């Protein structure tokens, strides 16, 4: 970088990762800096490097040199700006921030002077804003103390690495402070430097900054007063304006450039390598990996075929070349730990393309047998490390996470964070509050806006909420809420992403405490971590593995059979029959409404059909228009054709319709002679983060290759167009294959061990699409007996009892984790003998006991629900300490509970009932109104106009559905699929979006055994007091 006298570099700049303070995304700041002609710009968020990777990436793309830093809060509460000069400085800043964050409650990090002094090298410090120690002392008139503080900082950082920061936002106090700081600099022989203390990219963002300030201080704009900055001057100013503003302070501008030139750190040099995996003496990690793979291969394959040998050799040599053996060993070790502890786990995603992973028992699908493409997982040309995701039984995932912490130490392992951002509804609420709108007005608009809304269509939502969208304040509300969407609000924990490093992690990225006890998170999300060069291991919790684990144990307990999933033949016609009938409630991945609709058309008969089924009903294939052609071809209604004969072997398995990413890659290999690695590059160039330049380059090569292989220009262009359209939507075949395994296993359990399956499904809740209530109704419809919760027979979890499922204590809503401990402890001492004994030994609170009585928990003592409650009430009145022996009073006869009251009590207490379905109670009335049941629909013909009614159990409005809303209603005979067109959604919004029970008028649409009702009219169905207890599960 060469200097120029009139150049200015912004060295104090906050993005929206200065939570609820900065009002621009890091990328916006970087782009604006580029537009204004900055050659370098710093990002100095409060106490963190949260936005550093994004800023760095965007700045480099825009041609601006990124300077990393942070404005830290010191132990005395004063601020100080620290800029990273070199790699040492970066490590020191991370260490400073990590130490401060880990020692404090969330959001209250303070850097101690001792730690700062110790880690000052490699950093350049600026005296900070008005909250800096020196400005604060000067403002208070204590020049001597300010001088001492300046000397102290200069001593810590070095006289050439500490600068007095001049900020001028056209306010009288700023001018005075600048004068004093300038004089102090002169006296102490310290440099001064101009900064803008930027909080937003352009003045246009000032209102948003005001709003954020108000949210942070919990005040409305009208009451904000001094909380708000007095003007809109904290934007990224044109360098010329800054030069002019600070022209009277000699050196203030020139020093910005001088500092920028000394800040040379880049993420490219970040030493984020993995820790060395401990291997038996004398072996290298590669050798050890090779040995383990050989052992695993013998177990998996027996004697190796030539193909297997060569594939394993190919993979191992590439792993060796890329120096990734340690990574594979780390993941192998995790899988080993799981196996040893009996924790069900399975690799998912592109790792299933690897035979090495299969032999290491990280994945369960044989990629050689399924002809999967290894390069989709790993290739030499690929700049990124591979990504191995491991699914772990949900209920035991924490054990695995803690194992990783233990094995590599908390200094070297942490989870990646999830940056929790504002979504539409929350943005509407918070901006509405700040603008002073009344609570119910906010409720009205917020209810119109979906939970996951991205702030689109706010104006129409406002109109629907009865707001005047032309009003100035309403306009501000909608505009600011839309702009707030996507702003980071706080950090959460990523569902399973962990990173482990050789060097202490706290020197590579700031770490902070997670709200979950025993966990720490880094300040970056998975994408940022990956961009910074970290290799992530995803340890994901999967409810279905919990179910399979629990069901396997129950089968062992009740049938004495140990199920070995590796030995299943995957060709059982009973299982495929179940899937063809779409009786898939609780079956992995194929229980959604769309999957259920597709199964009878798809009629899967082989394992590969399941792989296709899993991949087919996905946003990609749906948006790419691949679903219907595939189903038509499968049904014989459309001829199977291929873009070129060369592609037939690749697309044959999917009937000429490209579904999988691997197929796209193979097309490039077969048609254009690409190497598999080049094909992967093409996939990535065309993929989610497509780069037009790269795509064009590779596209030209692809077409040229195809022409070379004898494909004419027109066909070559067509193939390229098809590939580029498909690349973004295709699904990884390996991932689909891993999931298909679980589909088969869960369906197997459902067919052969229904009691164990449903019991485990209830115990693994929350999981899947359906509420426990729907699961129980479905189980009963399928002839399974479900026994009520009974304190003399139930355990905490649901159990299998004589081929039936006995509900456990966990079914009762008011019994939480503490109650679980209390009950289990009491049960250890023996079963309960009486109500008084239960009350005494379980020590549950009054509310829980009352609810337990009303759901019939004490039926085992011969008490009706009401008798139990009556007796309980007497026990509550006993003085503390008095033994709850049986009462002497005569037995009171309580009124018998009506069926409807029992259903209501069940839903209030358990969210499910073993009594009649609520719809059954209304059936006579509904029949009189001509309303049909789900089973009646079987007799309806295409186009019949019908009225149906049910409880809304699922609402789905997928992004790919172009505004269509899919409702699943449930009545006592089954499910009713309702399709609501976008115009009907708008017209009947309140009914279809918010109502629990619905009466729907519509036309029957039948196709290959799938029945849908295309809704044209909707009215709420009221169940009296029961309505409040029913809930739908809403998905996008």
């Amino acid at each position, binding site marked *: 970088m060469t200097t120029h006298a009139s150049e200015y570099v912004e060295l104090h700049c906050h993005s929206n990762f200065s939570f609820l303070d900065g009002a621009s995304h890091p990328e916006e700041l970087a782009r604006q800096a580029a537009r204004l002609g900055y050659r370098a710009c710093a990002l100095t968020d409060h106490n963190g490097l949260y936005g550093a990777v994004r800023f760095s990436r965007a700045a480099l793309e825009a041609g601006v040199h990124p300077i990393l830093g942070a404005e830290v809060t010191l132990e005395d509460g004063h601020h100080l700006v620290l800029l990273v000069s070199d790699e040492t400085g970066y490590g020191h800043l991370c260490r400073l921030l990590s130490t401060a964050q880990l020692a404090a409650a969330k959001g209250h990090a303070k850097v101690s002077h001792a730690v700062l002094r110790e880690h000052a090298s490699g950093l350049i410090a600026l005296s900070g804003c008005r909250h800096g120690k020196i400005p604060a002392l000067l403002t208070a008139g204590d*020049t001597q103390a300010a001088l001492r503080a300046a000397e102290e900082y200069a001593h810590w950082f070095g006289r050439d690495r500490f600068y007095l920061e001049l900020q001028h936002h056209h306010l009288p106090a700023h*001018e*005075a402070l600048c004068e004093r700081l300038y004089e102090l600099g002169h006296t102490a022989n310290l440099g001064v430097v101009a900064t803008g203390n930027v909080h937003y990219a352009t003045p246009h963002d000032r209102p948003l900054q005001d709003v954020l300030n108000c949210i942070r201080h919990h005040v409305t704009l009208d009451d904000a007063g001094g909380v708000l900055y*007095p003007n809109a001057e904290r934007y990224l100013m044109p360098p010329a304006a800054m030069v002019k503003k600070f022209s009277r302070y000699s050196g203030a501008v020139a020093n910005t450039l001088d500092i920028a030139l000394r800040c040379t750190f880049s993420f490219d040099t970040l030493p984020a390598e993995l820790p060395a995996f401990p291997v038996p003496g004398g072996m290298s990690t590669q050798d050890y990996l090779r040995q383990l793979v050989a052992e695993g291969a013998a177990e998996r394959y027996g004697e190796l075929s030539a193909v297997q040998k060569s594939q394993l050799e190919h993979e191992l040599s590439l792993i060796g070349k890329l120096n990734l053996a340690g990574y594979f060993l780390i993941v192998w070790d995790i899988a080993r730990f799981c196996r040893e502890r009996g924790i069900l786990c399975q690799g998912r995603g592109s790792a299933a393309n690897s035979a090495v992973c299969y032999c290491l028992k990280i994945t369960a699908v044989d990629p050689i047998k399924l002809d999967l493409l290894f390069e989709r997982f790993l290739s030499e040309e690929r700049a990124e490390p591979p990504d191995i995701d491991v699914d772990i039984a949900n209920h035991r995932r924490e054990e695995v996470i803690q194992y990783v912490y233990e094995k590599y130490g908390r200094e070297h392992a942490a989870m990646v964070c999830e940056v929790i951002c504002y979504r539409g509804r929350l943005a509407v609420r918070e901006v509405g509050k700040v603008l002073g709108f009344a609570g119910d007005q906010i409720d009205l608009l917020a209810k119109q806006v979906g939970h996951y809304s991205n702030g689109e269509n706010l104006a129409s939502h406002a109109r629907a909420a009865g707001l005047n969208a032309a009003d100035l304040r309403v306009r501000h509300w909608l505009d600011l809420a839309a702009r707030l969407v996507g702003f980071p609000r706080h950090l959460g924990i990523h569902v399973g992403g962990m990173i482990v490093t050789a060097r202490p992690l706290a020197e590579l990225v700031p770490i902070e405490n997670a709200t979950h006890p025993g966990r720490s998170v880094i300040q970056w999300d998975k994408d940022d971590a990956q961009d910074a060069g970290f290799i992530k291991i995803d340890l994901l919790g999967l409810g279905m593995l919990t179910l399979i684990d629990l069901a396997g144990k129950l089968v062992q307990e009740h049938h004495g059979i140990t199920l070995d999933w590796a030995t299943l033949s995957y060709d059982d016609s009973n299982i495929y029959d179940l899937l063809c009938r779409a009786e898939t409630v609780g079956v992995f991945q194929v229980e959604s409404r769309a999957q259920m609709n597709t199964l009878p058309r798809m009629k899967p008969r082989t394992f590969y059909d399941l792989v296709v089924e899993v991949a087919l009903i996905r946003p990609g294939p749906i948006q790419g228009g691949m679903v219907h052609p595939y189903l038509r071809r499968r049904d014989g209604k459309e001829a199977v054709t291929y873009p070129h004969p060369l592609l037939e072997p690749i697309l044959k398995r999917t009937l000429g319709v490209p579904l999988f990413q691997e197929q796209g890659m193979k097309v490039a290999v077969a048609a254009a002679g690409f190497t598999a690695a080049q094909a992967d590059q093409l996939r990535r160039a065309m993929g989610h983060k497509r780069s037009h330049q790269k795509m064009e380059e590779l596209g030209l090569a692809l077409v040229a290759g195809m022409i070379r292989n004898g494909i004419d220009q027109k066909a070559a262009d067509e193939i390229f167009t098809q590939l580029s359209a498909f690349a973004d939507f295709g699904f990884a075949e390996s991932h689909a294959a891993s999931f298909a395994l679980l589909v088969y296993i869960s369906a197997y359990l459902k067919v052969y061990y229904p009691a164990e399956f449903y019991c485990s499904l209830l115990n693994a809740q929350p999981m899947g699409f359906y509420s426990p209530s729907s699961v129980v109704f479905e189980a009963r419809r399928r002839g399974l007996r479900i026994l009520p919760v009974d304190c003399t027979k139930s355990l905490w979890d649901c159990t299998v009892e004589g081929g039936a499922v006995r509900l456990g204590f966990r079914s009762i809503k008011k019994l939480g984790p503490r109650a679980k401990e209390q009950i289990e402890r009491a049960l250890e001492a023996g079963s309960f003998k009486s109500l008084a004994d239960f009350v005494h030994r379980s020590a549950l609170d009054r509310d829980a006991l009352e609810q337990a009585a009303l759901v019939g928990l004490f039926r085992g003592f011969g008490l009706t629900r*009401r008798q139990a409650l*009556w007796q309980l009430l007497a026990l509550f*009145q006993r003085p503390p300490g008095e033994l709850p022996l049986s009462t002497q009073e005569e037995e*009171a006869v309580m*009124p018998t509970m009506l069926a409807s009251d029992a259903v209501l009590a069940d839903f209030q207490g358990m969210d499910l009932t073993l009594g009649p379905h609520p719809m059954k109670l209304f059936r006579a009335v509904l029949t009189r109104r001509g309303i049909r049941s789900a089973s009646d629909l079987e007799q309806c013909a295409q186009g019949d106009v019908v009225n149906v009614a049910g409880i809304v159990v699922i609402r789905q409005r997928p992004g790919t559905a172009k505004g269509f809303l899919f409702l699943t209603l449930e009545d006592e005979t089954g499910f009713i699929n309702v399709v609501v067109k976008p115009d009907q959604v708008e017209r009947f919004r309140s009914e279809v979006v918010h109502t629990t029970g619905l009466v729907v008028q519509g036309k029957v649409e039948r196709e290959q055994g799938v029945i849908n009702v295309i809704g044209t009219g909707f009215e709420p169905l009221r169940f009296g007091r029961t309505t409040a207890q029913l809930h739908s599960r809403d998905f996008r």
Partner: protein
Amino acid sequence: MRASRIACVRVPDFALAWWLARHPEFSEVPVVLAEGQKAASPVLAVNSAAHAYDVRPGLSVSQARARAKALHVQVRDPKSEHDLSRRIVASLQSVTPAVEEDAPGLWFLESLGQGRLYGGERRFIRHVFDTLAPFALPVCVGLAGHRDVARVAAQVSSPRTFLIVPTGSERKFLAALPSHHAAAPSLAPYLRALGLDTMAQVAELPASQWAARFGSSGVQLQKLAQGLEGSPFAPETLTEPLRQEAAFDFPLFSSITLVERAEALLTPLLAVLASRQEAAYAVHVEFDLENRENVSWELALSTPVCVTAPFARQLSHALGLQPPRAGVRGIVVQIESSGAAPVEQLEWSHRPERVVPRELPHRSGEWRTPRALSAALPEAAAEWHPTEAPTPKAGLLADAPIHLPCLSSAFGLRLFSPPQRVTAVWSNGALSTLESPALHQRVQAYHGPWVVSGHWWRQPFHRLYYEVDTAGPRYLVYYDRAAGHWYVQGVFD
């Protein structure tokens, strides 16, 4: 047990009913009574027109407004509710002397023998209705052998109807009634959960079991369900208020005169109180106006006094805020029994022997408190601590807090409201003169501009401020960027 007959007089939604009775023009308009006008204030009662819009008690005012656009919100006034209730008690005492006021809108009357006096219980109740007719309230009456059954009877009666429960048939009457009518709110959910929907079911369970579960409220409910007396009738004796009134030969307009006259009426009332060793903290003053309207004030103090001055000052202040719209023909001054308290309870040290002289000195409308009496005034008890100026820090060097580069901090700023528009004349890139019809000043020096902007959510402004030194005073001047004009906002005196 002594035989008794008790009548219960009940006005559902008493305060709202009273307001609607006085404003019949609102009968078709949705009206709610709310705790306050604020959006979040809860709705306490609704009329039938509001009910038709699904407006219910418990909603917030803004929620109610969202349901009924033309909603009229009437704010609850506990004081006037109380006053009205007292007036109704007074009226009912003309029917029978033994009256108990349970709550505003709920009264009990001793009715034993009243049937003979009025020619039957029905006629007696008719008389009660006639007595209360001037209030135009939707009165319900229940008559029974004891208080609690009478209340339930009034509760189940429709407005302007009555229900008589003959002695001895209380249990039969109650048997079919829903139990929640009589149960305490804390018991109602249990009754529902236990399926004890009727009073008959409640009666069937032994009292001891109710006691074992719900304590006294359970026993009371069970007793009631069995038709037995629960809480006894406790009539009160109404104390006559102290009242003075005066009618004038010609209408008075002067606030000073009116206050003086009111004070003259109040003085003997305070003297009476003083003789009873009592003092007043609430005085009711009512003006009878020429235009047949009345205006009244409740003058209230936090501490009772036996002097007129605090009340006089309050009245004077009230008249200053809202003078009568017509001449005043008469004044009534009244001290309710509830507005007085025994002297022993007073916390201030001065005894009521310092009774105010009849003639209070005053001058041109400004009340002067006589020195001798000032100590007796409640506000004299309060201590006043002047704010102390912060002690300057012991000096380090020539340290001083940062002063603005301008000199304004040495002066007080007098703000103009509204700011005066001026013409700013610039010459050679510098501000040279400020001109307006009232101002012509050559600028000697100026500081600025300071940029101030904001309030974008209501009325945005964006101003450049200058402190301008002239040959005369120093001005605070700004340029309004939106309007493109210059203004003098204030002067540093």
